[in-house]
């Protein structure tokens, strides 16, 4: 992402993650890819709260028991950041509350269209903030495009 135009809010280089994409990276111990994005390209991986909830719950699953620590570490060292209202100002200026509300409303709408909570809010944030979404399930896009 380029430099912001004068008078415009400064752009931030973010990529939004959905649950499945992040859990696959965790399971394969490939979070180093996110580290590369951050250190070499300045791109931060951000996840909406429903994705965080899903991830924290999934790592309780016996299937993912090895990745529990990796997830905790990723949150602690900022490799994964939870999308919060206050952090939106570089992207949307002073209207962070309105922007966050719009994401929540769109996320809720997407959930009602047949998409899981995590992916609904990841795509909603992607649309509202004009940011790319890291996902490995194209079906969510198909479902949403159908409406």
């Amino acid at each position: 992402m380029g430099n912001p135009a004068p008078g415009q809010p400064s752009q931030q280089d973010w990529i939004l993650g959905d649950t499945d994409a992040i859990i696959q990276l965790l399971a394969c111990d490939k979070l180093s890819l996110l580290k590369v994005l951050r250190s070499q390209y300045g791109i931060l991986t951000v996840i909406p709260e429903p994705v965080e909830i899903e991830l924290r719950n999934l790592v309780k699953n016996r299937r993912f028991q090895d990745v529990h620590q990796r997830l905790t570490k990723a949150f602690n060292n900022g490799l994964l950041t939870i999308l919060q209202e206050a952090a939106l100002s570089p992207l949307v200026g002073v209207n962070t509350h309105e922007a966050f509300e719009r994401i929540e409303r769109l996320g809720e709408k997407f959930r009602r269209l047949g998409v899981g909570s995590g992916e609904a809010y990841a795509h909603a944030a992607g649309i509202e903030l004009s940011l790319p979404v890291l996902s490995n399930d194209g079906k969510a896009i198909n479902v949403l495009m159908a409406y």
Partner: protein
Amino acid sequence: MLRDLVTLTNVEPKFWASVFNVAPEQFYEWMSGTRHIPKYILPELASVFGVQPSDIEKNQFEGGELQPAIWYKLRSIPSVSSTADLEMVGMVRKLCFNFGELQSFLSRTTGAYEGVFQRVRSAIDKAAPVISQAREAARMFRAEMGWETGGTAIGDFIRPVLRKIGIVIVESPVPDSLIEGCSFRVKSTHDIACVFANSYQSTWFRRNSVILHEICHGIFDLEGEPVSVDYRRETSDDISERRANLFAQECLVPKAVLVYLVNRFGIHWERLSAKNLASLIAGSKAEQRLVLRAALSHKMITPDQHDEYLKFDCAADLKKLSPQALTTREFLATVPHDQHKWFFQDRFVKIGGRGLLLPVGFLKIVIELLSADRITIDKAAELTMMDRYTFQERFRQMLPEAA
């Protein structure tokens, strides 16, 4: 408020975390208020706990006025003290919430059952004798459901037809529960009526009666009550219980059905054999006790004959006549091995330490919507209370392509 609600239910927070698919630590954080509860999950919490979404965010109970009636009532029933009962109600309420969401994907946002219940309820004279109330209500209900067709037994149609009018029927084994059946309403995208029948040490024939018994409570008794609970071997003389028993009997074995079966099988009541009785049970899709009670109430047998025939062991003959009479193991021996998992294992979800058998019809709709790209695999997993990987593993072969 969430902490107060959890305390009121008498169910461990860890179990609730599992119901709502949240890590226990995170649920504790919501309870303690150290983290806010995300807005998107408020409707689920509110629906299961029986309050308004805005109530969950309140700091306190407001002097107890916000105590949800259903949990208050469940706690006040001495026999519903076991954790199993309370956890089961919690799981089923969550399933009902999901059923409401599922219906919204099918553009069904109103429960047709409400109109049916209302019409039946308003047509019945509550001052009339209980038997008259039950007979008239059953006759009307059968007509509303399209079941007024002479001697045809309705046992096979109960579940799909009730589901079609928006009622969730859950039959799942809860071994350590005394509850045989219960019914309540849940707020989802619209009001959902739910009937639960405990399938542990129960038969399909028995559950036909339990389901209709609970439907009767839904029609007459759930207007002013948050929940109706019935126990195994309950012998209440209460009007609502007698009406519900008679309603179930009149729905399943009205005189027309009994007369038709008697003629069809050439039954002579005075020399009834166990084999004859098995034919009547298989034909009416009702349990032995109910068939005989119906025959007695229609004066086809004497009280002495009733007592004598009640002792008949019809199990072996019934198994030859009806697949529903087979035990799980016997039934599985009749179907191809590759379908075994679908019947039980794949429908079984584990929530906390407790299992819940998902209704076949519910699961089929989820898979159909997923196959048609109407919902994603994550949504399918949410609705069926599994994680996406378990869902994928179990149903991969039923989907057109691996998602």
